């Protein structure tokens, strides 16, 4: 079956520092990866869409300078939160799907970021 692993599950970083999170697709080719942030106040916020061999598209309020993403192959993606501050807290989710039209999006269990 299709599985998405995210690492680490939880992380705590000091305000102003950076942390990197990873997403691994198992059992299918993740041609398209979406990074979301889930918080109690704003439910799911789409950060960016990454498709292999295409430019990464960031949503309004999110930038490459703050959330650089790497999607080097069909099974792996990573995202870094640079200069993390309190408003960056939340559960970061990786949602992956194959390139075939209208296929399901599978999520990992997320990386919970706490900023102190």
């Amino acid at each position, binding site marked *: 079956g299709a599985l998405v692993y995210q690492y680490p599950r939880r992380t705590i970083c000091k305000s102003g520092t950076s942390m990197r999170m990873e997403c691994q697709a198992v059992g299918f080719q993740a*041609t*398209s*990866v*979406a990074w979301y942030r889930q918080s109690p106040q704003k*439910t799911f916020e789409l950060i960016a869409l990454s498709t292999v061999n295409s430019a990464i598209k960031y949503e309004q309020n999110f930038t490459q300078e703050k959330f650089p993403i790497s999607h080097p192959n069909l099974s792996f993606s990573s995202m870094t939160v640079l200069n993390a501050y309190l408003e960056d807290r939340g*559960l970061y989710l990786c*949602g992956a799907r194959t390139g075939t039209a209208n296929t399901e*999006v599978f999520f990992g*269990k997320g990386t919970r970021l706490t900023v102190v």
Partner: protein
Amino acid sequence: QQQVRQSPQSLTVWEGETAILNCSYEDSTFNYFPWYQQFPGEGPALLISIRSVSDKKEDGRFTIFFNKREKKLSLHITDSQPGDSATYFCAAREPGTGSNRLTFGKGTKFSLIP
């Protein structure tokens, strides 16, 4: 403007009852609607989904009823079990290959009366 709305915010039923979770959307171009089940501390897991060409999708105790004209859908959970206690998110997607963009509702927190 919120594109996907869910109601109620929370729902509690007795074990064995049928629960109905509602969802409505604004954008008539949305054509795919997955429901995700999320337990505390976990990521959302795909539960069941429906495409706009259908008006009903059933998978075990979970059924989606879809009304395209009214831009509404509902998730019915029959014979509710303690393991069903979770937050359920309705999502919607625009058509187009490569579209990995899902718009989520704020969720319905579902629980059973102990």
